[in-house]
């Protein structure tokens, strides 16, 4: 019990300690977060008129980010799955980092939900008993359910693991492993349900196809690991934690093929829709070429396609895939390309034209951009904190009864989580 009580203060004490660079980074993120708060204030006094949404195109940048981030959350399973199903050793050492990322992404999804809603103060209407939860009819109700459970699963798995490492005990497999397996399946479910959220609306022909869930999962398993690799490389550079090449190589392989298949599905969609070119293809046509002279999204579509193709081509070449100077470039291209493709590139054209044929355009307002950046800032703030704590424990810098012996930490704690001396 005493261990549990000292866990929190030890953990927090470790997190808030850091060098100039750390504080500068955190300060920067805190400023971004303030943007978000100000945007939220504006939206809930003036109304969503400060954003670019209209009755015609009523989901925009926020919804796009939301969809994308659910994918990032699900993408964490690309670490957990090889670690526990294929017993990939290098992955096993860093699983908990994936769980931290998943948690962050889900929290960010919630931030974007709050940004998106017209009346966020009424969210309690969704709480069963207090309000009404339209389950199982409403897909959104499903989505809220699976996201919250996923957050909880990662919270429990992640922090249980960290606590055991901290206290130097042994993991209770009977408790831990079932949760891990559930969380793997659950990761698929969150993105599947998010895809269903928009693909079950016949009113929006662009979204109304059964390819959506698998396409979501593939792009998630490409974009998620792109971010993870970037984070891993940063961790390797800036902390004493050493992430093995093996883990990074496996991730880049996963990205390659998931991205490849996602591109294949994009191509299938384009061929099927544009060959027949029914009016149901208008959304896609707008995205690719513009409709009635309105072309705002066209450069975004082609830009993202080029980014994804370039990333795919780079990753296909083993020499680039294992070159950690070039790999980040491919990751940024892949991440950015998918962000556009499945964010703005998917959400906005779904509304163009409207069900009665009106063609209008949408572009995010300053407030929307500011608030989205702010939400990402909050996300990175949370991610930094969570990763720092996790790394400290993995390295054995935070351990029970060890607050005094903080400096002598080059011993791997508890076997699996090997800590290597920084190069």
């Amino acid at each position: 019990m005493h261990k549990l009580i000292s866990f929190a203060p030890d953990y927090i004490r470790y997190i808030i300690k850091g060098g100039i660079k750390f504080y500068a980074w955190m300060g920067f993120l805190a400023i971004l977060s303030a943007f978000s708060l100000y945007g939220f204030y504006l939206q809930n006094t003036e109304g969503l008129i400060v954003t670019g949404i209209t009755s015609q195109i009523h989901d925009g940048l926020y919804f796009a980010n939301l969809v994308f981030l659910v994918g990032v959350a699900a993408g964490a399973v690309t670490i957990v799955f090889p670690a526990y199903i294929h017993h990939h050793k290098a992955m096993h050492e860093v699983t908990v980092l994936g769980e931290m990322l998943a948690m962050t992404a889900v929290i960010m999804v919630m931030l974007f939900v709050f940004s998106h809603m017209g009346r966020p103060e009424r969210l309690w209407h969704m709480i069963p008993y207090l309000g009404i939860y339209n389950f199982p009819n409403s897909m959104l109700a499903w989505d809220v359910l699976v996201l919250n459970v996923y957050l909880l699963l990662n919270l429990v798995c992640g922090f249980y693991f960290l606590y055991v490492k901290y206290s130097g005990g042994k993991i209770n497999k009977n408790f831990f492993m079932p949760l891990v397996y559930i969380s793997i399946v659950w990761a698929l479910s969150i993105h599947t349900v998010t895809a269903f959220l928009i693909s079950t609306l016949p009113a929006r022909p662009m979204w109304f196809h059964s390819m959506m869930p698998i396409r979501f999962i593939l792009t998630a398993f490409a974009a998620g690991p792109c971010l993870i690799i970037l984070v891993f490389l940063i961790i390797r550079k800036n902390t004493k934690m050493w992430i093995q090449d093996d883990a990074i190589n496996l991730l880049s392989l996963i990205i390659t093929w998931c991205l490849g298949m996602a591109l294949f599905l994009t191509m299938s969609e384009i061929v099927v829709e544009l060959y027949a070119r029914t009016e149901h293809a208008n959304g896609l046509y707008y995205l690719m070429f513009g409709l009635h002279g309105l072309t705002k999204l066209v450069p975004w579509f082609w830009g993202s396609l080029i980014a994804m193709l370039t990333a795919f081509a780079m990753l296909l070449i083993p020499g680039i895939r294992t070159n950690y100077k070039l790999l980040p470039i491919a990751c940024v291209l892949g991440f950015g390309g998918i962000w556009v493709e499945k964010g703005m590139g998917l959400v906005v054209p779904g509304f163009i034209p409207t069900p009665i044929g009106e063609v209008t355009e949408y572009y995010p307002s300053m407030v929307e951009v500011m608030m989205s950046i702010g939400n990402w800032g909050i996300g990175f703030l949370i991610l930094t904190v969570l990763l720092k704590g996790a790394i400290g424990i993995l390295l054995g810098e935070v351990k029970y009864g060890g607050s005094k012996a903080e400096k002598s930490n080059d011993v791997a704690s508890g076997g699996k989580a090997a800590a290597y001396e920084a190069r």
Partner: protein
Amino acid sequence: MTHNKIPADHSTELPSKCQVQPEPEDPSEVNSRRDFLKTGAASLLGAAALMTQSDDAQANIEWAEHFQGNYRLMTDQEKVEARARLEKRYSEEYGKAVTVDGTPAKEGVLLGYALNIRKCIGCRRCVKACVAENNQSRGPDAGQRIEWIQVMKMARGEFTKDKMADGYPESQGIQYPEGLGIQVGGNAYSPAGVVLEGEYFYEPEAVPEKDATYMPLACMHCEKPPCVKVCPVRTTYREPDGIVVIDYNWCIGCRMCMSACPYWARRFNVTTPVLPKAEMNPKTHYLGNRPRMRGVVEKCTWCIQRNRIGRYPACVEVCPVGARKFGNLLDPESEVSLILARKNVFRLKAELNTFPKFFYFFD
């Protein structure tokens, strides 16, 4: 002022009946839990009201509104209180005696609407009458203008020889028609538009215009409404007489219903609606034309404030050519039933199986 007590009143929960379909568990248990939670929320509210120490009745009413339940599940007593609260607030706000009616649906009534597409002359009087009747926002900005009816103006004679070229891509040197004009069919290279593409903001000098046909649209009050299915909090629901309504005080503004509606019938209040005092229609219904707030969705209710007391919707009354018919589908002698039995009738986007109760017909 006298209304400091409102939150407290609300907390003295009356024995609430379980009005939804019977739940599998022991209903008494469910109810007591619900009561417990509600009382919890209400006492929280009481505390907040105490803390603010405000004499301002307006603020207290708003507080009470924040914590009220879903209208459909309220007890009769709660419904009366909720409406009284609103009446007070609206009357102060608009400087006239505003009534908020709550007349429920009648037994044996299923409302239906039929529109004679041949007769419509596109005068848009229904649109204007609707706005006046239903207290829609009418500000200067685009986001502050809400209309529930669109009369789509579509070009007639689009297949004539001189129009064959319309719809070719711009790169081929031919201009798009002005506005978002119709682009149906034509030829293999045209960006064939949506069938319904047309204009609905037009100010003609005289109607009907020579080259136009008209297609009015509004909420179809679907029997299987996708908007109701997707709403995560059951804000929007089908009344027993078939009208699909919204409890504006319960809507969380997630806009799922707007994505789900195949007829673009729903509007979002991006800001606090602009409703001049003088123009405000004080005869309102809780589920209908009472003033809305920022951040919620609204749509046509077939003038629930009128039809529940036996009056025609404003659009039916105002239509100068009698193109609009409204009545009880369960009464075989009603005008709508006779039209459905005898005329050529169709529904819009029938393939989506939403079963609209808004029918189009022609003689």
